[in-house]
């Protein structure tokens, strides 16, 4: 415990912070969520008490004295938690930064609504608020038009059912089979599939389209053993008009579908995503291609150099 007293409180807000305020709460320390940002990451296990004291102190300052700076410091302090939670959802197609912003709204709501008398940690209270806000964002913003909740849920259920049925049947399921497995009528299945067109497929590709190294690493994971074939394809497609606007995975999937002749299910298995996701990515990629090469001569449209030499 001797080290605790040696710490110097760097309090830019000039708050009379309690003893033990740790450097771990620095706003710059944002790489590992609250676990590493807060004292719970302290290998000696001393930090948690510090964390609770500081949280409670700032919460008291804000709720009892209306100290807005305390509120801002709490927000800054807990942004790593928001980032950590947002990262869990980043693979679902929305931009990571957008998810952080949405999650931050959940954090702010949690701070504003926090009840000091309940005696719970802010982390405990904030986490479901942040996650809830992110989930709400997916539910509301993920659809480019308003789709009834029942159809959205059926669509989500269908995604799972398709993933289960394809390996079981060793082929793409029929609408009747989907309806039976999803406890719906064929008409409902068709309607749900149609509404999935309204899903914001723009965001679907973004999960592996970002700029961070982590997301690029995910792409390599998806490609797995196909990396060599992918590289060969890549040499050709990097020169193709319009293809520069597609990310690597989109180019790869289009290549597999339209030049290798693989079915969506086969592509899904190879790339490691669902068949529905492959379907959406193909549509989106073709749309991007169409937009990009709209002004080009048709003979150059989406050309895979050398693809006809195969």
């Amino acid at each position, binding site marked *: 415990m001797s080290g605790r007293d040696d710490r110097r409180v760097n309090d830019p807000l000039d708050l009379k912070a309690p003893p033990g305020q740790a450097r771990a709460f620095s706003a710059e320390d944002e790489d590992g969520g609250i676990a590493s940002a807060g004292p719970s990451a302290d290998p000696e296990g001393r930090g948690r008490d510090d964390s609770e004291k500081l949280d409670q102190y700032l919460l008291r300052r804000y709720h009892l004295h209306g100290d807005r700076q305390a509120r801002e410091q709490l927000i800054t302090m807990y942004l790593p938690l928001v980032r950590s939670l947002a990262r869990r959802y980043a693979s679902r197609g929305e931009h990571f930064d957008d998810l952080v912003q949405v999650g931050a709204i959940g954090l702010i709501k949690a701070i504003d609504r926090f009840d000091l008398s309940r005696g719970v940690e802010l982390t405990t209270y904030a986490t479901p608020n942040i996650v809830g806000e992110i989930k709400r964002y997916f539910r509301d913003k993920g659809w480019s038009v308003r789709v009834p909740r029942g159809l959205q849920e059926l669509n989500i259920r269908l995604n799972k059912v398709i993933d289960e049925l394809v390996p079981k049947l060793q082929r793409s399921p029929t*609408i009747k089979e989907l309806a039976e497995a999803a406890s719906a009528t064929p008409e409902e299945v068709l309607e749900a599939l149609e509404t999935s067109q309204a899903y914001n497929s723009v965001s679907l590709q973004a999960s592996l389209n970002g700029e961070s190294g982590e997301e690029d690493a995910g792409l390599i994971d998806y490609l797995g053993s196909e990396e060599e074939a992918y590289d060969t394809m890549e040499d050709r497609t990097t020169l193709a008009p319009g293809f520069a606007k597609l990310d690597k995975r989109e180019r790869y999937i289009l290549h597999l579908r339209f030049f290798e002749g693989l079915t969506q299910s086969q592509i899904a298995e190879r790339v490691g995503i669902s068949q529905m996701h492959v379907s959406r990515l193909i549509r989106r990629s073709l749309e991007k291609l169409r937009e990009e090469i709209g002004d080009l001569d048709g003979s150059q449209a989406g050309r895979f150099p050398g693809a006809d030499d195969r």
Partner: protein
Amino acid sequence: MSERIALEVPAKLSALSTVRMVLGGLGERLDFSLEDLDDLFLATDRLLQAALDAEELDHLRVDMVCGDGELQVAAGSFTSAGLRAQVAVTPGGCIDLCTLLRRLLDEVSLEEHDGSFTVVMLKRGSGNRE
């Protein structure tokens, strides 16, 4: 025994949803797989989008014939030489409309009528493919 359905929708992108729903209903009756239907939807969408881009149209006319394990879709009549070229010709190695239609469908042909043409597309259910 074949069944014929004629559909006329406003010439706008939002109307393609109606076309897909009708195609879906017919495909369901033919026991088309999800992928069969998705291919048919994509091919029809791309053709009709290209037609909307190429021509000033009031309506889109789509005739569907539901046969034995196969669905024929005829869209037209169109007059654009550009659209005709897009459907009929591919320089090879491209993901252009011609390539797309031929990859997604079992048969694609043009029917000519006094300066206009109809694009006829055939999709067989994967269980009925030769």
